[in-house]
């Protein structure tokens, strides 16, 4: 049965089983390949998107559970204030190596910064520990989040 979801502000109707994970709809049906497949079990965070602003693992999110939600992906996160700051910090700090996990890292970090303009190290640990980076770019991810937070100014 066709299901309509709203991705990056655009309604998209797809005809897949209602329990199909959002990840496969984005990647294989809609051709939005910025969101990555890593584990299929919400263990690595590569597939992270925002559902109504909340960082969500799209690999275990059935499409029928988000039909009333606003979905934001890496392709559009730069249009949000937090996302733009995070992307800039990622470039300034040269965070990226292979880059495969970084869509998910950026989505998690953007959600953190949007809800918490001045995260502590512990806040960063809590928000980011669900995102694995096999290249081990964690030192720079932490620095970049802090840089992005600084650009929020004192008192955010």
């Amino acid at each position: 049965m066709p299901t309509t979801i709203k991705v990056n502000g655009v309604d998209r109707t797809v005809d897949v089983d209602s329990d199909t994970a959002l990840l496969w709809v984005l990647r294989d049906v809609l051709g939005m390949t910025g969101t990555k497949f890593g584990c299929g079990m919400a263990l690595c965070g590569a597939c992270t998107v925002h559902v109504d602003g909340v960082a969500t693992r799209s690999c275990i999110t059935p499409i029928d559970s988000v039909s009333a939600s606003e979905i934001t992906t890496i392709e559009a996160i730069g249009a949000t204030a937090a996302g733009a700051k995070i992307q800039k910090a990622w470039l300034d700090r040269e965070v990226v190596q292979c880059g495969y996990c970084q869509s998910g890292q950026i989505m998690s970090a953007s959600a953190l910064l949007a809800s918490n303009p001045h995260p502590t190290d512990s806040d960063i640990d809590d928000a980011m520990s669900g995102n694995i980076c096999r290249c081990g770019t964690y030192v720079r991810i932490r620095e970049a989040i802090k840089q992005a937070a600084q650009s929020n100014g004192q008192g955010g």
Partner: protein
Amino acid sequence: MILNHLTSPAAGPGRSPSANDFSRRSFLQAGAAAGGGLLLSLRLPFATGDAEAADGFAPNAFIGIGRDGQIVLTMPYVEMGQGTYTSIPMLIAEELEVDLKQVKLEHAPPNEKLYGNPLLGGVQATGNSNAIRAAWQPLRQAGAIARTMLVSAAAKRWNVDPASCRAQSGEVLHPPTGRSITYGKLAADAARVPIPKGVVLKRAEDFKLIGTPAKRLDTPSKVNGTAVYGIDVRPPGVKIATLAQSPVFGGRVKRVDDSAAKAVKGVRQIVRLDDAVAVVADHMGAAKKGLAALVIEWDDGPHAKLDTDDIVSELETATLNSGAVAQNIGNTDKAMASAVTKVEATYQVPFLAHATMEPMNCTVHVRKDGCEVWVGNQVLARAQATAAKTTGLPLDKVVVHNHLIGGGFGRRLEIDGVTRAVEIAKHVDGPVKVVWTREEDIQHDMYRPYWFDRISAGLDEKGMPVAWNHRFAGSSVIARWAPPLFNNGLDPDTTDGAIDLVYALPNMHVEYLRVEPPGIPTAFWRSVGPSHNVFVTESFMDELAAAAKQDPVAYRLVLLDKTPRAKAVLALAAEKAGWGQPLPQRVGRGVSVQFVFATYLAQVAEVEVSKDGAVRVRRVVCAVDCGTVVNPDTVRAQIQSAVMFGITAALYGKITLKDGRVEQTNFDTYQILRMNEAPAVEVHVVQSSELPGGMGEAGTSAIVPAVTNAIFAATGKRLRKLPIDTAVLKQSA
């Protein structure tokens, strides 16, 4: 700067026309230019006659300059995160005299004659941390030759002495008259200039790019979701497949009931192979659901009862016999007999999976008259060859498109995933993308070998080593991967880090026994041989210091007089780490120093062990001398990265077999270090004008013994088997 064909939507079925056009040309060996060192004898492909490409100037296989001024650099090494798509362009651009932002990059097509790696026996491979070492001389030459020809063309046009012209930022200038002309406008003329026999390379003090931190060229596309990895390609009409391979290596499919799978919405086809079953569907969700609905009966074959313990006991037994002599200095038996103290130990390291973040995948379209492959792979020509062999098509009917790689670490130096995808695609009408689930990726990896070591040393009355005897057994990956490099029972990788220690050891004997485990394939893995040998040798050196009741840094320094670069990095790391300063209870510092991949590296790890045995690496200080640095930021990044990779292995890395099946399945049972566990990592780079060393892997081998040595300092417990067993680190009540 544009990554041509590397970002969507340009990527896909389109070819890289200029790269392929260049590669069709015939090439000959260049005359040796200025400079020295081991790279002088390399063959560099240069155009035979004129250097005129269809649309401009292509003096060699790496550089194309269009009449529109577009400069295209073709990358002979693949980008998998190590920064090669920035550092290789830096080498060319330095001599070509262009800015990095002026160049467009293309992946090299499979062509071993043009793009073979001279340091890997001519195989078109990216690995062994050697891209910069292999490219250092020839790719600067490539740039210098192109620049020389452009300058000649301008001088001829202006009727002036070429020596009165100079090149800068993609233009040739004639300072006496103030004239200038762009490379694009010179392209047609330059293509008719004879290729110079020799060129003079720039002196280090004239470098503008080399040695300065350059922004990575691949980063922008990787932060906005437009980068195209192999798994992202979408040729028109592509179907998605996922698969189940025999859970026991060497097993076969006995029976398949696919009725339920075929009933899943979106499933199009079930492909049954001898040892695997694939579900082809409209999307991965349907393919996975179909796979779960399959009922497959397997014939497990000869390894149905194999356990890791069986393999370990075979290795252990093997080390009771002598092996191939990998190193022999002095008279170790005699020195051992006269030693005042004798220390001996056994060490073991486990099988390890690569667990690249991008799961194994490959997209293939098999037609009657040709085959197209889209993949991110470290050995492109082998990918092409296996596709040709599997389809029965001639090599020139197989087109391979390379893509960005979401983590290699040696996994993509193998072509099993390409072969498998082509086997499946032969049964599918139209293109099919074969994507492995994470479980399939971990359970059908090709694994870093298990090694078992016996090591002993004799100490004199001062506690210093006078005899060193080391024997180990395990798989030789090289013997399978590059048989000509395996000679007299030895290969250059398996013994790397065991035979050429930085220390002055007057009597040293090292033996290796090649023992291939049954029922589990082995492969390269970040730092491969050194990931094992440096753990053993640097742990054991720590044991010797402890036996001599000496400080581990001071003990090592005494042995480093003949290797001043090693001594310097050790002293620097110790100083920056605050070696010797007091630490709280159950916190310790551990050290390691090594020379592998042509790079000197010392690390000090500061580790905390909780009362329940949990290990936390708090801080890592690294001092590195990798010779001439091309991109300093990449050197730092690679060490930071390799340190995390090594800590993951030290704390968690273990692949085990039970009844022939790999027991680990996903990131819950094969854990990777996470943000909350990541230490601070400081990197101190020594200024050097020596030839460049490799940086991709060195940090991984160094960190593991630094961590276990720190645990010894914190708890008095010596760990000789990986991964770290936290149970033995519990504080007794």
